[in-house]
């Protein structure tokens, strides 16, 4: 199979620029990780604190959804360019998944 790749040597300036961007992105990832740990701690604490289920359940579901969004968009790079098809696949999966869960929790009654 032909692989039409041109090898392009970066100039020192381009290389420094790439390194700096990569380091900045990595610091962003660390921030996101701290945020995820923080949200996990809130979820577990909210459950242990013994608030009303009507309050706790929506809060922990919302925190889970936000945390999954951070995983997808930051850790899995969906926020970067060239992720049109991946986004379409994931949103289609989430839509069908959501409808399935909705149907099962509302229609099944035993």
């Amino acid at each position, binding site marked *: 199979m032909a692989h039409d790749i041109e090898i392009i040597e970066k100039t020192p300036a381009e290389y420094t620029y790439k390194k700096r961007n990569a380091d900045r992105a990595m610091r962003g990832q660390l921030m996101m990780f701290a945020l995820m*740990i923080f949200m996990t701690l809130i*979820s577990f604490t909210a*459950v242990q604190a013994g608030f009303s289920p009507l309050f706790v359940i929506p809060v*922990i579901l919302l925190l889970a959804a936000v945390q*999954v969004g951070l995983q997808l968009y930051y*850790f899995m790079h969906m926020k970067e360019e*060239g992720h049109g098809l991946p986004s379409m696949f994931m949103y289609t999966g989430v839509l069908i998944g959501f409808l399935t869960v909705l149907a099962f929790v509302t229609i099944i009654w*035993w």
Partner: protein
Amino acid sequence: MDLNTKFTAKSWPDHPETATMEAKNKFVGFWLFLGGETILFATLFATYLALRNSVPSGNDFSTDTLFELPLVFVMTMLLLTSSLTSVYAMYHMKNYNFKAMQLWLAITGFLGLGFLGFEVYEFTHYIHLGFTYGNSAFSSAFYTLVGTHGLHVAIGLVWLSLLILRNARRGLNLYNATKYYTFSLYWHFIDVVWVFIFTVVYLMGVVG
């Protein structure tokens, strides 16, 4: 160009995971697979939500007495941290630092192994209590959902070990960059599913 061509940190492309046509195809194909996996897990979540706490009369297993949050918390931390270590691995992959990438992936593997160990312990504990797979609709739905996730972790660990060992002497090139990248996507996806498992199964189970 030969796929095994050696690069340097300065000639390594910005997006090695999509640098060749084969890599682009793998990248899109793998995301399609993850979209399908989303639906697979959604059906298992739907089944679990419909059947949780559905036990025959005289059977007193229920989510609020069975689950123990400290264990689940430790498992969550292990898997979440392993997600970060694989981000570090991909950071080094993009910087063409093969040794650092392999090291971070090995750490990822050990964290995943720890997670799996705790899960096996948890399941054995439940089975000793009499909460076996055939105990009730609740137990079957629980083991199928959480067990399918655990199976994904186990498959991920085999995949990771093969990647690390098979490419140990080859070093990083455009032949294996996408292989490493799709593995990291898979590993993050496992964590994504676990976020919903610890929230929907364990936390919502304890709340009642």
